[in-house]
Structure formats: structure tokens, C-alpha cells
């Protein structure tokens, strides 16, 4: 099984993300506000933008009604730096506007201070 330490837990604060390398792949490590780690390919599935230049933020959810915003999920959504598509970190990297599309993801585990990606 291929696995690799991609960073230290202290390298990424909750609510932040960072690019790293896993094998030959450019990957994005996200740490949600609850302290958990997630990893995706660092390339938008739309036109290939580098997602680490985007933003981890909240979202207006589908519970919003016309003229009435329902905003939550703070720090759990990646917004692409180009066309702004939103991907749900805690739901397999699925696109909010089209959940059939998702960012390719990697398995993550934390051992001691190490963030480890594996397949």
C-alpha cells in the first residue's frame, strides 16, 4: 500500500488548506474547523485551476428560499480560484451545484504529528 507523510499537523491550522505532493501528484490538504484533515487532487475538475489558491469558506445552502439566504458550513467548502465552483470537503468533495461531480480524493490518517496520505 502506498502511503506518505505529506505534512505535520501543526503545518495547517483548522480552517486552512495547503498544497503538498503525494508521489507525483499535486494534492490539497484541508483542515476543517473541527480539526479533521481531508485531501483532494489540487486541480479543479472544471478547467484545472489550482485549488490551493482558492478559499475555504461557508456556503449558502440549498435550504435557502428565494430572497432568503441560509448560510452555514463555515470552513467546510472549497471555492475554486477561477470560476468559483464550490466543493463540499465533508461530502467527498462533491460540487454543490452538481453533486455528481467530485474532486478526486485521497485517504488521510494522522499518526502522532504526521498527516499521512494513503491509497
Amino acid at each position: 500500500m502506498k502511503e506518505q507523510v505529506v505534512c505535520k499537523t501543526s503545518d495547517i491550522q483548522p480552517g486552512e488548506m495547503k498544497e503538498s505532493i503525494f508521489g507525483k501528484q499535486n494534492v490539497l490538504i484541508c483542515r476543517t474547523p473541527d480539526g479533521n484533515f481531508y485531501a483532494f487532487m489540487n486541480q479543479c475538475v472544471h478547467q484545472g485551476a489550482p485549488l490551493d489558491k482558492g478559499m475555504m469558506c461557508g456556503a449558502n445552502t440549498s435550504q435557502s428560499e428565494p430572497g432568503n439566504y441560509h448560510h452555514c458550513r463555515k470552513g467546510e467548502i472549497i471555492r475554486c480560484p477561477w470560476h468559483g465552483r464550490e466543493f463540499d470537503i465533508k461530502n467527498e468533495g462533491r460540487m454543490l451545484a452538481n453533486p455528481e461531480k467530485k474532486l478526486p480524493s485521497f485517504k488521510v490518517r494522522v499518526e502522532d504529528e504526521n498527516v499521512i496520505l494513503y491509497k
Partner: protein
Amino acid sequence: MAKQPIPLVDTDIHERVQYRELLEYLDEPFRHYISNCHWLQEKHMPYTQPSIAGVDRADAIVPDGRPAGSDLAFMQEQLLDDVGHEFGILTGALDPSPSSMHGWHEMAAALASAYNNWQIDKWLDKDERLYGSVHVAAQDRDEAVTEIERVGSHPKMVQVLLPIDDIMWGDPYYHPIFEAAEKHNLMIGMHHNEPPIYYGKWPRYFIEWHTLIPTAHMKQVTNMIFNGVFDKFPNLGLIMIEGGFTFIPHMMWKMDQQYRDLRHEVPWLKRKPSDIMKKQIRFCTQPSEELSKKDFTSLLEQMGTDEMICFATDYPHWDYDSPYRALPNLDPELKKKIFYENAKNFYPKIPNTREGYHEGTSCL
């Protein structure tokens, strides 16, 4: 995976000036108005910004913090060298936009001249791949003609840029601008600024406004055609920048049918509108919808030509189209036309090869 360079004439690249950079190119009192009176062009798009870095790609902000598009070296690294552009056409000046000034034409004309000099100095003379647009304060027709006469013969100026705001440029009053452009082998590029697309008002959401921008482009094309610009100036071409292209067949069918019914009102039109479009009007592909190859091919069939659309990235804006990913996979010959030949054939001043341009030929 190493990217293959794509031979490309990129028909929409936004270089960006910062107001303080214009100062050295401005005479008094206009310099004073900016440096001491802190004049800024008023802009009022009443929306949240479309993306996380405003209207720019977040990764295009210059590493030292300057705004996206403001630094040639960074543009070279991120766009021109990375993609491998043959040529790129600069279409900046959205802010300040001389032709979008309300009143105060003196300031608009001064800004246009300063901008053109800055563009030549800082961009066109510095990178052989880059070609430019003559900015004019077009609402002041005579000043615009004077400016075209002043910089239009620069070997790297390929078009006169007119904004899509609230003036319809086909009106015979503006024809001297087209006459001057044609005289200097310049095409007309039209790019929207803040076009009213909603009965003169703003719709409630940016997504509505941005969806309907093509309607503002359609209005200008219709206006230019039925006002007889293209028969009057047979060597003039018009390129519609950043309105997309999927509406073209509709326009061709609609205008041809209207022409057959209503020719008596516009007897100066000698050819059917679709023929004029095929010969003299081009459309940039960006912002492209996500078409399948089948839909894309069928659209070209409906246009009756694959020579009317030209690829554009719109770098560094948020709705950038990647030359690698924006269009479906096309056959090499068709791809070459859309990415390179159509634009190259459209602009008479773009040379066949980069060696065709010799630095120092500026007549300014």
C-alpha cells in the same frame, strides 16, 4: 504531465493600469485631478463580487500584492510562456474606461491618450507577442478620430476598442471613427463594460446580469449591420469580445429573415446580414459554455462557417477560459482555425510570424 503548447492568438487579455502609473503620461490639469484630488472613475455594479478575488482569478494576483494583470513579467510567466502564445491582443482599460465616462469628455480624452502611451511603453514595446487596442473617448467623436490618427499607425496597434455601455455605435454620427480605423488597417473590437441588459436597470443578481451579457453584444451587432457600417467600410471588421458565440446562428437567421421582410427601411444594406457576419464580424469564444463536441460541431454547422469564432482566455479575469480545457476536443485542423488562423486572418496587422515584426518601427 507536460502541457503541449497550442499555437494561439489570444483575442482577449486584460492588462491593467494603476491610476498612479498614468500620471507620467498625463498633462495638467488631469494629472492634478488624480494625484491631488484623488479622482477615481465611478463604478457601481451593485453585487457581491463573482468570485473570491473580485473579478480576477485569485491566482493571478501579482505575488507582491499588486492587482491581477498589472505586471508584465508575471503575465509572461503565468500566461504567455506557460501556454506558449504566438500572439495576444491586449484589451485592458476597464478601469478607468475612457469611453465609459459620463460627461467630462476632456478627462476621458486625456485618459485615452495617456493609456495608449502607457500601453505602448510598458507592454507593446516590451513583448513581441503582445498587440494592442487603441483606446478612445468615443463619445467625443472628433477627439476619438484625433487619437486614432495619433496612434493608429503604430505597428502593434491592431484595433480600436469601443465599449458596450449605453451608446449604439452604428449611428452614422460615429462613422468617422470607422473611417479613421479603416484608414489605418485597424479593426473594431467591442467589449462590454457595464452594459445595461435589463431595460436600462440592473437585474437583482449578478448571475442574471452575466447570463444576459450576450444580449448587449447582439444589440451592437444588429445596430452596426442595419446602420450599414459594413458596406460603407468594406475593409472594416468587428470583433465582439467576451460575449460568447452560441447565439450566432439565431442572429443570422433572425436578421436574414427580417431583412427579407423589411429591406425597404435599410436600403443601404447590399448583402444579407449573415453574409456580412461571415465576412466582417468575428466573435470571441470566451466565456464558453460547456458544450459537448457534438453540440459544438452542430453549432458550427448552423453558422455555415468555422471561421467566425476566435479563442480568447480573458486572462486574468475570474471567468478565464483555459486553452486546454474550455472547448471540447477538436480535430487538429479545426482547432488551428479557432485558436490561431481565424484571428490571424482577421487582423491585417498581425504578421505571419513573430519575426514579421521589427522592434523600433514605432512612428510615435
